[in-house]
C-alpha cells in the first residue's frame, strides 16, 4: 500500500476513507515521548491551575457530604423528604445514576478489548478509574439509606446472634452481590492494568519517597516476558469475565424494580433498557472528563479526535436505544390494556412530574441527534455540552422511573408527592464532590493513559509495521 502519497494531516485522524488506516497516536510520537507525555503529568512539581481550582471545589463538596451523611446517621432518615408511598427518592435515583456511570469503564476495557477495538487503549485507563469512583459513590447510597448503618452486616451471609440468614430471593440482596462483585472485579482489572505503568513511574522517579511508594505499588514488575505471558492471559480472562458481568450488573439493578408489582416498574424490557442507559450515561461521563483532560494535560496526540468521534457514535447509538425503550414502554402500557399501567405513563408525560419527564426526553433523545453530523462529532465544545446534557437526562430518567411510579400507584387514596429536602440535595452534590476528588487525585498521582497498551498498538520502529 502506498501511504506516502496520501497527505495525512498530523492532527486529524477522523478520515472516513477506508483505504487509510487511521493512526491511533498522532504527531510522530515514539515510545519515549508517550512515556514522557503521560508521566510528566504525574511528575510535575505543581499541577495546572485548573486542577487546583477543581480540586478545591470538589474537596469542599466532599466535606459537605461528610457532614450531611453524619447528620443523616445521627438523626435518622426522617431528614430526607421520603414518605409513604414514596420510600425511594434521591437516594436510589443517585445509586442507579452512579452505577450506570460506572458501566462505561468496564465496557471500554473488557468488551472493546474482546472486539479488538485498538483505539480503546487511549481512554481505557481513566474510564476504568472513573468506574471505580462512580461505583464507590453508588455503593454509598444504599449504604446510608438503610438508616441504621451499624447493622449493615446483616446483608452479608454471616452467622449472627439471631441465627437467621439473608433472604436470597430478594432482588435487593442480588444487588448487593452484583455491585459488590462489580466493584471488586473492576478494581482488579484497573490495578492489573496499572502495574506496568506504575513501574514506569517508579523507574523514572528521582526522589526516595516516590521510588519507595511507586516501587511498592508496582509490586516489583520487571517487564519480564514470562510475566507478560501470564499477564496477557489473565487480562484476556478478566475481560471475558467482566463482559457478562457488566451486562448482569445493571440487569440486576433493574430487577429491583422489575420484580415488583408497581405499574411502570413491572416490565420485562427493564434489563436491556437499563444496560443501554448505563452505557449511554457512562460514555457521556467519559466524554465529559476526556474533553477537558486532554486539553489541560496536553494529551491530544493520545486521546485523538478519532477517539472522541468514536465515543460520539456510541453515544448516538445507545441514545437511540434508550429512546426506543421510552417509546416501547408507552406502547406496552397501552397494548397491555392494564388501566394502572396506562395511567402511569400518561401521568409521567402530563402529570405533576412532566417537567422532569420532558427534560429527560430532550436531553437523552434529542440532543445526541446532533452527532449525525461529522462536524458536530469533531467539535469538543459541542461534545462537552451534549455529554453534560446526557448526564442530566440520565439522572432524570432514574428520578422519573422511581418517583412517578411510587407517588401514584394503584389506589388514589394512597397517593402522595415527593420533594427532596436540602439534605438530599447536598448529598447529591456531595457525591459529585467525592467523585471528582477521587478522580482528580487519580489524575495527579497515577498515569492516566495506559502507556504499555498504547505502545503495543504503535507501529514498531524500523521493524515491519503490521498492516
Amino acid at each position: 500500500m502506498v501511504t506516502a502519497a496520501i497527505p495525512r494531516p498530523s492532527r486529524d485522524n477522523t478520515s472516513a476513507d477506508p483505504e487509510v488506516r487511521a493512526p491511533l497516536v498522532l504527531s510522530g510520537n515514539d515510545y519515549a515521548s508517550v512515556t514522557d507525555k503521560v508521566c510528566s503529568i504525574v511528575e510535575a512539581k505543581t499541577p495546572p491551575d485548573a486542577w487546583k481550582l477543581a480540586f478545591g471545589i470538589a474537596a469542599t463538596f466532599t466535606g459537605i457530604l461528610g457532614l450531611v451523611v453524619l447528620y443523616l446517621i445521627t438523626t435518622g432518615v426522617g431528614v430526607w423528604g421520603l414518605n409513604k408511598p414514596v420510600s425511594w427518592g434521591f437516594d436510589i435515583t443517585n445509586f442507579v445514576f452512579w452505577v450506570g456511570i460506572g458501566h462505561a469503564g468496564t465496557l471500554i476495557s473488557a468488551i472493546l478489548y474482546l472486539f479488538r477495538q485498538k483505539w480503546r487503549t487511549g481512554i481505557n485507563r481513566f474510564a476504568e478509574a472513573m468506574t471505580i469512583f462512580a461505583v464507590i459513590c453508588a455503593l454509598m447510597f444504599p449504604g446510608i439509606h438503610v438508616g441504621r448503618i451499624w447493622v449493615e452486616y446483616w446483608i452479608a451471609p454471616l452467622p449472627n446472634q439471631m441465627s437467621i440468614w439473608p433472604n436470597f430471593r430478594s432482588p435487593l440482596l442480588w444487588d448487593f452481590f452484583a455491585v459488590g462483585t462489580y466493584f471488586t472485579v473492576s478494581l482488579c482489572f484497573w490495578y492489573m492494568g496499572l502495574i506496568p505503568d506504575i513501574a514506569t513511574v517508579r523507574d523514572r522517579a528521582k526522589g526516595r519517597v516516590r521510588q519507595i511508594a511507586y516501587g511498592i505499588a508496582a509490586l516489583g514488575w520487571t517487564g519480564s516476558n514470562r510475566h507478560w505471558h501470564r499477564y496477557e492471559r489473565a487480562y484476556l480472562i478478566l475481560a471475558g469475565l467482566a463482559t457478562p458481568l457488566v451486562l448482569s450488573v445493571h440487569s440486576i439493578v433493574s430487577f429491583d424494580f422489575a420484580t415488583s408489582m408497581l405499574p411502570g416498574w413491572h416490565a420485562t424490557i427493564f434489563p436491556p433498557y437499563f444496560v443501554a442507559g448505563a452505557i449511554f450515561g457512562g460514555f457521556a461521563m467519559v466524554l465529559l472528563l476526556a474533553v477537558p483532560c486532554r486539553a489541560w494535560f496536553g494529551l491530544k496526540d493520545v486521546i485523538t479526535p478519532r477517539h472522541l468521534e468514536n465515543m460520539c457514535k456510541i453515544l448516538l447509538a445507545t441514545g437511540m436505544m434508550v429512546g426506543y425503550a421510552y417509546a416501547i414502554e408507552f406502547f406496552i402500557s397501552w397494548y397491555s390494556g392494564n388501566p394502572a399501567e396506562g395511567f402511569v405513563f400518561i401521568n409521567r408525560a402530563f402529570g405533576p412530574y412532566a417537567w422532569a419527564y420532558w427534560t429527560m426526553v430532550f436531553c437523552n433523545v434529542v440532543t445526541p441527534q446532533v452527532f449525525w453530523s461529522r462536524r458536530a462529532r469533531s467539535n469538543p465544545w459541542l461534545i462537552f455540552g451534549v455529554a453534560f446534557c446526557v448526564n442530566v437526562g440520565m439522572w432524570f430518567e432514574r428520578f422519573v422511573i422511581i418517583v412517578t411510579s411510587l407517588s401514584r400507584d394503584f389506589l388514589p387514596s394512597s397517593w402522595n408527592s415527593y420533594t427532596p429536602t436540602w439534605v438530599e440535595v447536598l448529598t447529591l452534590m456531595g457525591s459529585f464532590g467525592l467523585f471528582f476528588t477521587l478522580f482528580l487525585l487519580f489524575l495527579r498521582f497515577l498515569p492516566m493513559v495506559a502507556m504499555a497498551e498504547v505502545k503495543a498498538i504503535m507501529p514498531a520502529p524500523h521493524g515491519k509495521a503490521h498492516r
Partner: protein
Amino acid sequence: MSGAGSSWGLLAEYETPDALVRAAEAVRDAGYTRWDAHTPFPVHGLDDAMGIRPTRLPWLVLGAALTGTTGGLLMQWWMNAVNYPIIISGKPFNSIPADIPVTFELTVLLASLTAFIGMLVANGLPRFHHPLLASDAFRRVTTDGFFLAVEAGDPRFEAEATKRLLEGKGATRVVTVEA
C-alpha cells in the same frame, strides 16, 4: 554489597522488538534455561521465540468458577431451605431461579480473583527486590528498552561465550549485573 566476583548474570539491550525476538530465538536454540526477555509492553512472537509453554492459569480459573457456582448454589439452598427456612411470597424454599443471580456473581467473583491473584503468584509477585532493578541500564525497560537477561546460574552460562552470543545478535550493549 558483595564483591565484583559475584555476578547475577548478563543484560543485553536491543534496539527494536524484532532484534530482541531474533536474539531470543538464538538463546533458546543454544539451550539456555534460566533467562528472560524484558520489554515495556508484550511483544508479539516473543513467547514462541522463547519457547514459553502456555500457562495453566485458565484451568485454575475454571476450577475457581466451578467452585463459585456450586458453592453459591449450596450456600443459598442450605441457608434458606435447610438451616432456617423462610417463607417468602409462598415461593418454594429451594427456588433455583431466584438463586441464579447470586450464583452467577459468585462464579465471576471467584474466577476473577483467581485470575488476578493467580497471575501475581505464578509470576512470583509482589517481589520487592530484583538484581535487575538495581541496574541503571535497566531503567529504560518500562519506557523503550528491549532487554534480554541470562542468569549466571544457567548451566550453559559462560561469561565470555554468552556475551558473544548476545552481541552477535546485534545487542547495542551487554553489561554484567551484580548479584
